């Protein structure tokens, strides 16, 4: 074997070339749109400040814009008589919680019920705490709900007749920052691991 083929000099030069190519390739792949293309989230940029609203939480306490200050919030709009989408979303939030820092991370998870006629504060509390003892429920009259839902682009409407009606509703999970500003919209399908990565990306 020709001992000069793999001389230290040639090996060093080859390594420098490979590292340089790797560096260049990495830079090129990052040259596309970055921050707003996090997977699993539509980033709201600039953040959308939420207008004042006045709802009641599941313990009967006021749930207003002040409750969104000082911590990040994942918000979902649903209702307790929902067979499929809402339990799925609440389960996803439960699975997200440890990935988003857990119980002490100062992140809150809120279900806003768009069915105040059936979802009394007591029922709502029972519902959310089934999924996690820290989860919060909130609701109000449709006029009060509109102050929160309309600016966020959330739609809902009753469907079906009688006492067992269903409510069609937006299925995205909304991310609100500690200044009570909407920062992101996480659409279906909800994958907890991707949501956690998206959350970390938005917080940066």
């Amino acid at each position, binding site marked *: 074997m020709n001992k000069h083929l793999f001389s230290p000099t040639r090996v060093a030069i080859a390594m420098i070339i490979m590292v340089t190519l790797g560096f260049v390739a990495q830079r090129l792949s990052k040259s596309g749109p970055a921050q707003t293309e996090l997977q699993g989230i539509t980033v709201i940029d600039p953040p959308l400040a939420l207008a004042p609203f006045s709802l009641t939480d599941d313990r009967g306490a006021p749930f207003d814009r002040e409750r969104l200050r000082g911590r990040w919030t994942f918000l979902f709009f649903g209702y307790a008589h929902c067979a499929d989408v809402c339990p799925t979303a609440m389960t996803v939030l439960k699975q997200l919680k440890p990935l988003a820092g857990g119980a002490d991370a100062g992140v809150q998870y809120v279900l806003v019920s768009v069915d105040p006629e059936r979802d009394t504060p007591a029922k709502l509390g029972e*519902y959310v705490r089934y999924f996690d003892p820290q989860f919060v429920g909130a609701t109000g009259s449709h006029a009060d709900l509109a102050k929160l839902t309309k600016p966020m682009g959330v*739609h809902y409407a009753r469907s079906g007749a009688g006492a067992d009606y269903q409510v069609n509703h937006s299925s995205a999970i909304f991310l609100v920052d500690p200044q009570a500003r909407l920062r992101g919209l996480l659409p279906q*399908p909800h994958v907890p691991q991707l949501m956690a990565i998206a959350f970390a990306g938005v917080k940066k």
Partner: protein
Amino acid sequence: MIRSARLLGLALVLVFAGAHASDEVAVQGAWVREAPPGASVMAAYMTLVGTASSTKTLVAAKAAGFASVELHETVFESGGVAMRPLTALAIPPRERIVLAPGGRHLMLIKPQRAFGEGSQVVLELKFADGAVMRLDVPVKRALADEAHHHH
């Protein structure tokens, strides 16, 4: 020597029996999601596998301990979800029809008692040709991997 020949013969028969698809719909992975206390509806999910040669059509269902059962499909319309009731679900030969979170599901309405994790729901599926299937479906809190069960 004869005994092992018989066992071999039995094994071969079983292998060939399994190789032919059935005339019945097969149900795989059926589960009912445990609901919060006081819930008026629960959802049942499963995969229905078609028969060897003919389409079977699910037209009705019943569940012991529930007032009624309906088949629904969660559909996405302009950013929101709606639930559309289905009157029938066709299961073509050899196809897998999946009922999963975020998609089609059986809505079990008005439980007459609590169905907690670990209990079973006796579900009856009725088909257009008159066939009836009875299943014991376990109640579970949540599947670990929910997102990947999207239809």
